[in-house]
C-alpha cells in the first residue's frame, strides 16, 4: 500500500445453508435440479401463500453465531425488506433488521503469525432470491437484454449473512478471515461454503484514510468476488484505486463496484446517490422467535472443536504453526493426523510426513488425501520402523511414497522396495573389516588422529551394502576398529 494511508475494510458474507428444505417452505435445497423444478406456491410468492420458518436453519444460524462467539439474542424477529426485482418473487425479501439472531461476536485471523481480532457485528437469517438469466446484447446484464429468464429453484434457500465491524486493515487479513469463516461453517457442517458455486459470497466495504485520522473515508462496496484470492486482489486493487483518487486531488464516490476477475479491476455499477429506502417492517406473517437460555446452552454445547482451538491444540503437541494450519485446513489430512496421534504416533513426525510427502503427492496427482491408500496406522508403523533402525529417514520417505501409490503397508513396501536397513552387527562387521583391509592408508591416517577419511570409508561400506547399512553403526565401527588395529 502507498504509505501514508490506511485501509479500513468490513466484510459482509452470505452463506447458503445446506438444510433439507428451504427457509420458509418444504421445497428441497437442490442446486443441481433443472430450472424451476424445486419450487412451490410459497417460494414462488403465489397469492395467498405464507412462510413458515425452518427450524433446522435457525438451529444452524445459532451454531454459526455461537462459533463466532456472538451473543445469541433471546427474542428476534423477521422483517420485510421491500424492493422490486424480477427474481424476488414477493418483491420483498424476508430478512432480519433490528433484532437478528446473533450479535457482538469476534473472530481471530492470523496473517504471517500476527493475530488480529475482528468484531462480528451481527449474524442474521434471510431468504435467497431466484436467479435471472439475461439473454441478448447486454453481456449477461439486465440492460440491453433481449429477454430474461428466471430460475426460482434458489428462491427461498436459507441464507445467513455475517457482517463484520470495519476492523480489517489489509487485504491479507480479509482473505485470512474469509478462509477462517469458510473453515468454521464447514466444520459446523451447515454449508459446503463453495465460493465458486456461490454458496458463500463476499461483499467488501472499503475505504482509506490518512494514517492517524480517526474519521472513516467514503467507502465503496465491492461485489462479485468469488474466490478467496479474488477477495484479496479486489480489496488490494480498490485500496490502491482510492488512494490514487485522493492523491490525484479527487474524492471517492460512495458506490457499488463490480470486481472483474479477468482484468483484475473494479468498476462502478450504480451510484448510491440516493440511498434506497427498503421500508423495513416486521413481517406480520411470522411470529417473533424466542431462543431461551436452555436452547442457547444446547447450541453452545453442540459445537465441535473450532479451527482456532484445534490449531492451538496442535501447537501444544509440538507441531509447527504452518503445519498446524495445514492440518486444520484440510479435513482429510487432519483426520489422518488425529488418528495417528490417537494410535500413539509422534505428532511432530506425523505432521511432517503429512504436510510434506503426503501433500506433495496429493498436489502432484490431484488425488484427495482421503482417497489415497494411506491410513493413520501406516504412519505409526513407519515411525516404529525408523525408531527401530529398520529404515533410514530417506528410506522412510520412499516407503511412504509406496504406501501412497497403493503398494501395501509400510512393512510390505519396505520389503518389496528392498529398503530395510542392515543393522545386523555381524554383516556390517564383515563389510567394515573388508573395507579397512583394502584401505590401509586411510586407517593409518585415522590412527594418527586425522578424522577426515572416516567419511570416505563409511561411503565405501555403504556402497558395498547397497546403501542399506545403518550409517551410524558403520561410522562407529570404523572408528573403533581403526583405533584397535594398532
Amino acid at each position, binding site marked *: 500500500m502507498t504509505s501514508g494511508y490506511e485501509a479500513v475494510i468490513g466484510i459482509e458474507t452470505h452463506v447458503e445453508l445446506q438444510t433439507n428444505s428451504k427457509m420458509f417452505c418444504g421445497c428441497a435445497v437442490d442446486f443441481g435440479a433443472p430450472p424451476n423444478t424445486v419450487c412451490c406456491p410459497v417460494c414462488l410468492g403465489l*397469492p395467498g401463500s*405464507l412462510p*413458515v420458518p425452518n427450524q433446522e436453519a435457525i438451529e444452524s444460524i445459532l451454531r454459526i453465531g455461537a462459533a463466532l462467539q456472538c451473543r445469541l439474542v433471546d427474542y428476534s424477529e423477521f422483517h420485510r425488506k421491500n424492493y422490486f426485482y424480477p427474481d424476488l418473487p414477493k418483491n420483498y425479501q424476508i430478512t432480519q433488521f433490528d433484532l437478528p439472531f446473533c450479535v457482538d461476536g469476534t473472530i481471530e485471523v492470523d496473517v504471517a503469525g500476527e493475530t488480529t481480532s475482528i468484531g462480528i457485528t451481527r449474524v442474521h437469517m434471510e431468504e435467497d432470491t431466484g436467479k435471472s438469466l439475461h439473454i441478448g446484447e447486454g453481456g449477461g446484464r439486465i440492460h440491453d437484454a433481449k429477454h430474461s429468464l428466471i430460475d426460482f429453484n434458489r428462491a427461498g434457500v436459507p441464507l445467513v449473512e455475517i457482517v463484520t465491524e470495519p476492523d480489517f486493515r489489509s487485504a491479507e487479513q480479509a482473505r485470512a478471515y474469509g478462509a477462517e469463516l469458510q473453515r468454521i461453517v464447514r466444520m459446523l457442517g451447515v454449508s459446503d461454503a463453495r465460493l465458486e458455486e456461490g454458496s458463500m459470497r463476499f461483499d467488501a466495504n472499503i475505504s482509506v484514510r490518512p494514517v492517524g485520522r480517526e474519521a472513516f473515508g467514503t467507502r465503496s462496496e465491492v461485489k462479485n468476488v468469488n474466490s478467496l484470492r479474488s477477495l484479496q486482489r479486489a480489496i488490494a486493487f480498490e485500496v490502491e484505486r482510492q488512494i490514487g483518487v485522493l492523491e490525484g486531488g479527487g474524492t471517492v464516490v460512495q458506490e457499488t463496484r463490480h470486481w472483474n476477475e479477468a482484468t483484475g479491476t473494479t468498476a462502478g455499477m450504480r451510484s448510491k446517490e440516493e440511498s434506497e429506502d427498503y421500508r423495513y417492517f416486521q413481517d406480520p406473517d411470522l411470529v417473533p422467535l424466542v431462543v431461551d437460555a436452555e436452547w442457547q446452552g444446547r447450541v453452545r454445547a453442540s459445537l465441535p472443536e473450532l479451527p482456532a482451538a484445534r490449531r492451538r491444540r496442535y501447537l501444544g503437541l509440538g507441531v509447527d504453526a504452518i503445519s498446524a494450519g495445514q492440518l486444520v485446513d484440510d479435513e482429510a489430512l487432519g483426520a489422518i493426523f488425529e488418528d495417528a496421534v490417537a494410535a500413539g504416533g509422534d505428532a511432530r513426525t506425523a505432521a511432517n510426513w503429512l504436510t510434506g510427502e503426503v501433500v506433495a503427492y496429493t498436489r502432484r496427482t490431484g488425488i484427495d488425501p482421503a482417497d489415497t491408500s494411506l491410513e493413520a496406522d501406516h504412519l505409526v508403523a513407519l515411525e516404529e520402523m525408523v525408531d527401530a533402525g529398520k529404515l533410514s529417514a530417506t528410506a522412510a520417505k520412499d516407503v511412504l511414497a509406496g504406501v501412497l501409490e497403493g503398494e501395501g503397508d509400510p512393512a510390505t513396501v519396505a520389503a518389496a522396495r528392498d529398503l530395510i536397513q542392515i543393522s545386523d552387527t555381524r554383516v556390517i562387521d564383515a563389510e567394515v573389516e573388508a573395507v579397512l583391509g583394502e584401505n590401509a592408508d586411510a586407517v593409518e591416517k585415522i590412527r594418527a588422529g586425522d578424522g577426515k577419511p572416516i567419511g570416505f570409508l563409511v561411503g565405501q561400506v555403504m556402497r558395498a551394502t547397497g546403501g542399506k547399512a545403518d550409517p551410524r553403526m558403520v561410522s562407529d565401527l570404523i572408528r573403533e576398529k581403526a583405533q584397535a588395529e594398532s
Partner: protein
Amino acid sequence: MADLADLTIAAAGVGLRAGEFTAVELLEAVTRRASVTEAHLHAFLTLDQDGALASAEAADAALARGEDLGPLQGIPLAVKDNMCTQGIETTCGSQILAGYRPPYDATAVRRLREAGAVIVGKTNLDEYAMGSSTENSAFGPTRNPWDTDRVPGGSSGGSAAAVAVGSALGALGSDTGGSIRQPAALCGIVGMKPTYGLVSRYGLVAFASSLDQIGPFGRTVGDTAVLLDGILGFDPHDATSYRGEMPTVAGSIGVGVAGLRIGVVAELLDKGIAPEVAAATRGMLDQLAAAGAKIVDVSLPAADYGLSAYYLIAPAECSANLARFDGVRYGLRVDGGTTEEMMANSRAAGFGPEVTRRILLGTYALSAGYHDAFYGQAQRVRTLIRRDFGAAYEQVDVLISPTTPTTAFGLGEKTDDPLTMYLSDVCTILSNLSGDPGISLPIGLDSTGLPIGFQVMAPALGEEMLIRVAAEVERLAGFRERPALATSEVAST
C-alpha cells in the same frame, strides 16, 4: 314443500339425512335461486356449476353409503373470491388477477371440501378486500338484496348478499376491518370474525396480514357456529395459526345470558351513530337486562384513534403484500421498454383507484423519516387498544355495540369521499386491531325496511361466550324477515 334454498344449514342437514331430498336437489334449488337473483345482485364472480354438481353427487353417494362427514356434507356454500380455489378462477375482484387459477386450495376451502361441502362459486368483493361497499370490485358492484339501489356493505358484500337471498346456505368471507360483520349487518344475516389465528390464512390472498381473518356467514347464529367449527384449527402452513386448544361452540346455544356482565362501549354508541340504530341497540340491551344480564357501561379510550391507526397499519402491510403482483409470473402483464416499466405499467393498469390509494398511503407510512411517526405510532395505538380491551374484559364477559353507524347506504353515495366510507367501519375495526372475535347479527329493520346489525365482541378465544350471547340476542330479537328478492314470488319470476 318450501323452497330448499330457504333452509338453514341445520335444517338442510336433517332433511338430507332423512332422505327428504338429495344434495343435488339442494344444489339445484340454490342454483335456481341464483339464476333469478344474480341479474339483480351480482353476488358471484364465478359459478362452478360442474364442480358443485360433482361435489353434491359425491355427498349423496357418501351419505347413501352411510358415510356421514358431519353438518356441512352436501351443503351448498359460497366462498369469497380472495380465497384460493384450485383450478377455479380467483381474482380478488381485481383486473390484475383476472383469469388467474391457483394451483392449490386455501386451507379453509380444503377443510370445507373435506367436510363434504358443495362450493357453488366465488363471490364478489371490493378489490383485494379494500372497501366497505363492494363498489370497488373491478367487475362491477354487488347490490343489496333489501334494496338494489343500496350497497350490500363490504368488502365481503357478495358472500353476504348470496346468503341473504339463498344462493348459498352459508359462505366464507374475510374480515380485516369489518369486512364480514359490516356486510352481514347491511344484508340482515349473521357474520363472524373469529379470533386472529383460529382459522388459517393460508390461501387467503393477503390484504393486511396482521388483521386479516377468514370467517363464516350464515342466516342463523347456529349455522354460523357450525361453519366456524368446520374451518377452524391449527394449520402448519400458517405461522400465525393458533396451536392451543380450539374453542368449542356446539354447546353454547340456548344457555342464555342470566348472570353475564355485558359491557356497552360508550365510544361506539354516542357519536355518529344513526338514531334508529342507536335506539335499536338500546332496545336490545333492555331485553338482555330483562333476560338476566347485567349491563355495564365501559369505556375504551383509545377507540377514538382506532380508525387512524387502522388506516396506517392496513395500508402499510398491503403495500408489501401487493408488491408481488408485478406481471412477472402471473396475472395481467402490460409490456414496457424495461422490466421496471413493465412492472409499473402492469400495476398501473391492473389496480383500481382504492387499491392504488392504499398502496401509496402504506408506502408513505413506511418511508424513511416517516416510519416512526406513522407506522410506529399506529402500532403503539394498537397496543393501547389491546390494553383497553384487556381492562374492559376484566369487568365484563362480552362487549356490545352497533355493527355499523347506519343501515345500508346508497350505491355511489360515498364513493367520492373515501373518509366517509372509512367511517362505516368505525365499530368493527377495533376487534381486528385487538385480534379478538366479533359477531354481527340482525335485530330488526329501520323505518325504511333495512336491517340493523348488532355486534357482540368477546376476548380472544372467547368464541363460546360470543356464540352464547349472540344466540340469546337472536332469540330475543326474533328476526325472521327476508329480503324481497328471496321471497318465492320474486324468486320464481
